């Protein structure tokens, strides 16, 4: 009997691994092998335009990134600005919309669908759409502000280095906030009504209820949303690429890495850059897995 049970277990394991093998094969071939293989490449000077001049340069690609490369430093600063604005704006808007959609009103299902629209449309199309809205000559935003008497002259929003990075962050936040709303709405709906009622009896007003009762209960979900948005905004590419291309004023690390590897075709230096981004991504991944498995605590 014991033998048979052992056999069944062994068979079950074999079937399981067999069923998983195509997926594991794909993941190794297109994720893990490439991720490892890029590392040795990062020690070479290797340009696809002149592949015969491939040369081992040791750590000098990495030295260049941290010491000599002004474009990297600028892209790093841009990334911090972009991420800070995107995360705070999308969390604020996401929370606000979640609170609205948690109220009961006729047509709520429809409004919930409408809220999802920015998240559903292709991000690159989203970027072009906003580029048209922000257009300096014919743009709808300029038209609106002009007609409202708020500006005297049309402003070329995306050519101004201060505005353009903020607009990129704004459009990214416009896209991401529905996702955050969905996460926070699920959490809001799971708050027991008795808790709210009890605090009403205790004489708490709406603002107090929100700060002392709702917000603490939302904390785990806010953390999850924050981590997801941290990764999203760090990896954002489509929206920025569509809005301003590889403009130095809005060039984040993701865009810069694209430019180095796939426009300048500097695969060696691009590989080193991608490993620096990978290291940053790993830090986020650590929090991600910790938070998702710990239920946000």
């Amino acid at each position: 009997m014991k033998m048979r049970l052992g056999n069944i277990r062994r068979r079950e394991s074999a079937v399981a691994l067999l069923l998983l093998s195509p997926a594991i094969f794909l993941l190794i071939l297109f994720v893990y092998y490439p991720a490892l293989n890029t590392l040795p490449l990062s020690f070479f000077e290797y340009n696809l335009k002149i592949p015969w001049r491939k040369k081992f340069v040791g750590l000098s690609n990495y030295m260049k990134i941290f010491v000599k490369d002004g474009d990297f430093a600028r892209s790093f600063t841009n990334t911090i600005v972009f991420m800070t604005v995107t995360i705070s704006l999308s969390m604020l808007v996401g929370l606000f919309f979640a609170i609205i959609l948690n109220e009961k009103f006729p047509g709520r299902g429809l409004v919930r669908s409408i809220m999802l629209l920015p998240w559903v449309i292709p991000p690159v199309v989203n970027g072009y759409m906003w580029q048209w809205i922000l257009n300096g000559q014919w743009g709808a935003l300029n038209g609106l502000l002009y007609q409202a008497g708020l500006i005297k002259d049309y402003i070329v929003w995306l050519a101004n280095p201060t505005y353009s990075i903020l607009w990129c962050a704004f459009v990214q936040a416009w896209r991401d906030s529905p996702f955050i709303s969905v996460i926070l709405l699920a959490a809001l709906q799971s708050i027991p009504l008795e808790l709210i009622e009890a605090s009403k009896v205790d004489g708490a007003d709406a603002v107090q209820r929100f700060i002392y009762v709702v917000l603490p209960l939302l904390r785990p979900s806010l953390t999850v949303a924050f981590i997801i948005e941290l990764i999203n905004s760090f990896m954002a590419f489509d929206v920025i690429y569509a809005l301003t291309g590889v403009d130095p004023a809005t060039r984040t690390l993701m865009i810069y890495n694209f430019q180095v590897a796939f426009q300048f075709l500097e695969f060696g230096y691009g590989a080193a850059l991608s490993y620096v981004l990978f290291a940053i991504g790993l830090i986020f991944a650590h929090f991600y897995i910790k938070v998702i498995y710990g239920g946000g605590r």
Partner: protein
Amino acid sequence: MTTFNKSLRKVMLLIAIGFLIFWSVAPIAWIFISSISPTVELFSRPPHWIPYNPTLKNYMDLLVTGRGFRGATVIPAVRYFRRGLVNSLIYAVTTTLIMAIFSSITGYVFARYNFPLKNVLFYLFIGVIPIPGWAVLITIYQIFATAGLLNTLHGMILLFITYRLPIDTWLMKSYFESIPRDIEEAAMIDGCSKLEAMFKVVMPIALPGVAAVLIVSFISTWNAFLAPLIFTFTEEAKPLTVVISEFIGQYYVEWDLMSAAAVIAIIPPLFFAFIFQKYLIQGLTKGAVKY
């Protein structure tokens, strides 16, 4: 006093809902209005919020008659655009259908089978989610070049499937875990194998989970831009998103064609999101957040 408070609250809620709708709809509405504006009206200051002479000319140019744009000396715009539309449909539909079956199997294995290294293997799946693309894409480019997969439909589909696997597997796994085990145990006592039990008894109950996989996979594949931007070069394999990016010239943008193309690209995901809103939300919350 309380009635005053109540109506004040109602008014504030109404304003907030109005803001939400304006915020979400206005930009999309504007691109739609632009797409049916004649070129003269498109370039007017201040903008014609409602076009005097709405027209479908831009759509006709894209889909039927064709008109020159930047790349048109080589390929007529209409063929280019239509081909992009077809490619995008092929990518999205194929990936989605494969993922529905694929992730059901992998999700079921992680939910119900016992085997060594189960946790390690599951980490292997979800560890993919936060890896930024470039570290991987540089080598994939070389693999694709060697294997002749650059600029091919099947190469792109392989890539789409691989990068859908983690989230879709996770989604199906948590869905299966929410179904009580007794159901398939009863079927197995009746002589079904584990796999038979899954297809005959569990899958019908898990259909909402499959629907979530379908909708999330469709939207994400349809919207994909970065990988196809790097791995596709000609109309044979370029999806709509990449084709659209080429309406932007270095010095001049064809805003009239662009707005119509944008609307066409927006319609399929919009349609699915409205029809399957419930499953989409389920897919979002279960795929990204465990609880």
